[in-house]
């Protein structure tokens, strides 16, 4: 642990910023409900790859930023992201070993937990009813996970982020 030096922090920051941009990038209304949860995916990847660098604290901060950008209740995404990143950090040793399609199952469950927390918070705040579309991002995010995983792994290796 003392041997490895941390480097490439700016790469992590850039990928997170990019995911935030993709999260609020305007899309046609039909597709926008299926928009993958880019920030959650990127956070899960970094927690999986470098659990000693990206943890609950960073997830919380990124979630707060997303709350400000999306005008959701302050802390809603913060709490949800902190929880799924905590779970990822707990599970990373197992997750790294399994093939991608098995990772997808875990990621799907993590994202469902994420959505469920957000739904609860909406309920507590008395926001209006949402239909089944509320769960759509979990599905698309899971389907896009292999792409995110492989891209970010290539990025991590290219820039030797440690």
């Amino acid at each position, binding site marked *: 642990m003392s041997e490895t030096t941390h480097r490439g922090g700016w790469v992590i920051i850039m990928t997170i*910023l990019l995911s*935030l*941009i*993709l999260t*609020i*990038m*305007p*899309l046609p*209304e039909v597709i*926008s*409900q299926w*928009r993958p949860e880019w920030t959650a995916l990127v956070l899960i990847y970094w927690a999986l790859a470098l659990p000693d660098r990206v943890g609950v604290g960073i997830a919380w901060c990124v979630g*707060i*930023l997303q709350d*400000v*950008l*999306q*005008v*959701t209740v*302050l802390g809603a995404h913060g709490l949800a992201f902190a929880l799924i990143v905590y779970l990822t950090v707990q599970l990373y040793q197992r997750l790294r070993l399994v093939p991608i399609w098995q990772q997808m199952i875990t990621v799907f469950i993590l994202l469902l937990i994420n959505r469920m927390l957000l739904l609860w918070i*909406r309920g507590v705040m*008395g*926001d*209006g*009813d*949402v239909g089944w*579309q*509320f769960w759509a991002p979990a599905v698309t995010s899971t389907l896009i996970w292999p792409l995110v995983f492989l891209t970010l792994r290539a990025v991590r290796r290219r820039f030797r982020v440690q």
Partner: protein
Amino acid sequence: MDLFEPGRQALSALVHPVRIIASTPATLTARLDENLASRRALIAENQRLKDRQQMFEARLQRFDSLEVENIRLRRLLDSSYEIERPVLIAELIRIDLDPFSHLIEIGKGSRHGVYIGQPVIDERGILGQVDQVGPLSSTIRLISDPSHATPVQVNRNGLRGIAVGTGAIDQLTIQSLPGNADIQVGDLIVASGLGGRFPSGYPVGKVQRISHEAGQPFLTIELTPLAALDRVRQVLLIGDESDE
């Protein structure tokens, strides 16, 4: 909520560049559209706008004399007349917010004098009100949001009601009018000014459908909002007269 407000505002300013970057592609394509518009289309649009301008000015001539007459009549009745309020124009920031509520983001904030609860209109009618304010941008809750209610009246006879958002971008509903209320399909619904938030007289919507289920005490009235809620690009913020 107020406890976190300063922090939220600071963060809002901090992430403003993210908003700008995210909105760039959409803004650029819109600008490209304008640049690539053919000469003929531009001339046609120019002509159309000139015609409209002329029509409006003709109507305004009558409006001026009517306004003076109205003030005089109201003075006779000892009631106040609302003076014209200052208006601030703001551009929409083209980003997607939480898809499950009806919010839009505009590029003017507390630095430009925007305040929470400020009424927002477009050139056709009421859009909504300012929900959250940051230093450089603010969020508007549209009248179609399920948590938004607008005090309204029927323009024809002054019958009052409350128009509530349904969650569909092209529909509002009035639920509290009794079965014998004098309201017809096609009636213009305007803001009543009660509640003190929306200035009275601004159009809200047109009655599209009225249904009365047997056994129900109230009518179900569906309105179509007049403001272009889903495709607005510029909004007008109505200022407080006490400000200036």
